[in-house]
């Protein structure tokens, strides 16, 4: 069959179109485009069906597993597909690895090395630490080490890749906040909180981190090893009460860290991270409610908190 490839402005993207097998899949089409254009590898391609001009509908994105025939109207043996370049892509694993590596490596630098003399604190050459600062180091590094392990062994991503520009944006976010918090918690003039408060903070945080890990396991089991399965209703454990229990436990875990370490920097990070995750949670909750509307044999999405009972 013949596939006509156009850009979003309507211009013919590949002159003369492409000739493919009648039984070809979208994945085959992606391969053919890649072969022809060299530059646009499959994960960089966004292929959609044309939307009538003026229509406000969202375009149908071609699923790489389906056969092209499924998208053909009626008996036609040709198809017009709209192409968009998503820009250079990196795998999510690469992205996550680098954004978490920064905090994991940079924080201990402030603990072990006499960096504060560069901030004007001469004389603090041999860092002496309160117990809470040592526990904070272990807690922090455990957290980011856990995240990296989950990235490689637990998470199953629905999209294989993310735009390259996100590497810079995300690393800036994690690394800057990592440095900001590390500076204050390991400061030579750091003022620790009381012993009980510290224990409550770290204890609570640790429990939440374990709960968060379990949430990730549950989410992993919703999908096949290749990321297939799309969107499912998460069930069990905290997911029965709240849609994004994984974000909830993550937020509370940072709260635990802050209760124990008590820095403005840490709390600022908590507020920013919470607002970002809340945004994601709202999107996910809405998507699941829309997808699982109870019609056509689909289950109806149960009533649940979005992310932070009793507020949202």
């Amino acid at each position, binding site marked *: 069959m013949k596939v006509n490839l156009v850009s979003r402005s309507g211009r013919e993207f590949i002159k003369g179109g492409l000739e493919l097998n009648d039984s070809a899949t979208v994945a085959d089409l992606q391969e053919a485009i890649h072969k022809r254009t060299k530059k646009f590898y499959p994960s960089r391609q966004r292929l959609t069906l044309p939307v009538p001009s003026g229509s406000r509908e969202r375009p149908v994105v071609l699923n790489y597993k389906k056969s092209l025939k499924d998208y053909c109207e009626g008996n036609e043996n040709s198809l017009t597909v709209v192409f968009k370049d998503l820009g250079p892509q990196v795998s999510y694993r690469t992205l996550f690895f680098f954004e978490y590596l920064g905090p994991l490596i940079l924080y201990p630098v402030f603990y072990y090395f006499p960096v504060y003399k560069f901030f004007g604190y001469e004389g603090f050459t041999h860092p002496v630490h309160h117990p809470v600062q040592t526990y904070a180091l272990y807690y922090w590094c455990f957290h980011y080490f856990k995240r990296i392990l989950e990235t490689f062994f637990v998470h199953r991503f629905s999209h294989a890749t993310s735009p390259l520009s996100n590497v810079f944006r995300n690393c800036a976010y994690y690394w800057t906040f990592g440095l900001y918090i590390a500076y*204050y918690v390991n400061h030579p*003039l750091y003022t620790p909180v009381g012993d009980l408060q510290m224990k409550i903070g770290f204890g609570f945080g640790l429990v939440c981190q374990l709960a968060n890990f379990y949430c990730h396991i549950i989410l992993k089991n919703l999908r096949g090893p290749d990321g297939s399965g799309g969107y499912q209703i998460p069930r069990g454990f905290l997911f029965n009460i709240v849609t994004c229990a994984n974000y909830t436990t993550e937020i509370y875990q940072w709260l635990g860290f802050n209760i124990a*370490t008590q820095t*403005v*920097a840490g709390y600022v990070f908590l507020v920013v991270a919470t607002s970002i995750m809340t945004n994601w949670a709202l999107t996910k909750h809405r998507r699941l409610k829309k997808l699982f509307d109870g019609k056509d044999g689909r289950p109806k999405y149960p009533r649940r908190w979005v992310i932070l009972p009793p507020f949202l």
Partner: protein
Amino acid sequence: MASALTVLRRLYLSIYNWTVFIGWFQVLFLALKTLKESGHENVYNAVEKPLLLAQSAAVLEILHGLIGLVRSPVSSTLPQIGSRLYLTWGILWSFPEIRTHVLVTSLVISWAITEIIRYSFFGMKEAFGFAPSWHLWLRYSTFLVLYPTGITSEVGLIYFSLPYIKASEKYCIRMPNKWNFSFDNFYAAILTLGIYVPGSPHMYRYMLGQRKRALSKSKKE
């Protein structure tokens, strides 16, 4: 059919815009008068009261955007108002040593002309429902000159205040304290200067885009 709320909204916004217009008119008038009569060193003292009032009133505009009284997105008004308030209160009001600098005059005049045009433009639209095309043209053209002069003045004043900021320790918070927090005004000022580097071309380009939209739209009408 104008509902009572629409009328109230227009009344409020008319009063707001024309009041602040008068404030900025005073600023410009006093600035030019003082410049002529004594010199640039005395300009700040002459305009201080109306300047502080008119500039601070702009905070209401964030509120207006948030509650939907006006259509302007909060995202573009926030950096603009932020830099204005920082200069007005954070630099000029806080560090008197800088008040006699000549850049204060260029700053105040750039701001005043821009605001006079802007507030009267909105005042006209809210009160009378229209604004003449020359007014629209002024609103979307004077920035071409006044943004560079204004931004240069802002950056210059922050830069020349740096020694005073460092010496005075004003607004600085030092360790140790219960919340393990610190704030160094000197480095914050340097960081602010840094923000102007990408921020200024961004704002200028944004206004160029606005100009294109506004002036082409009026041609079509």
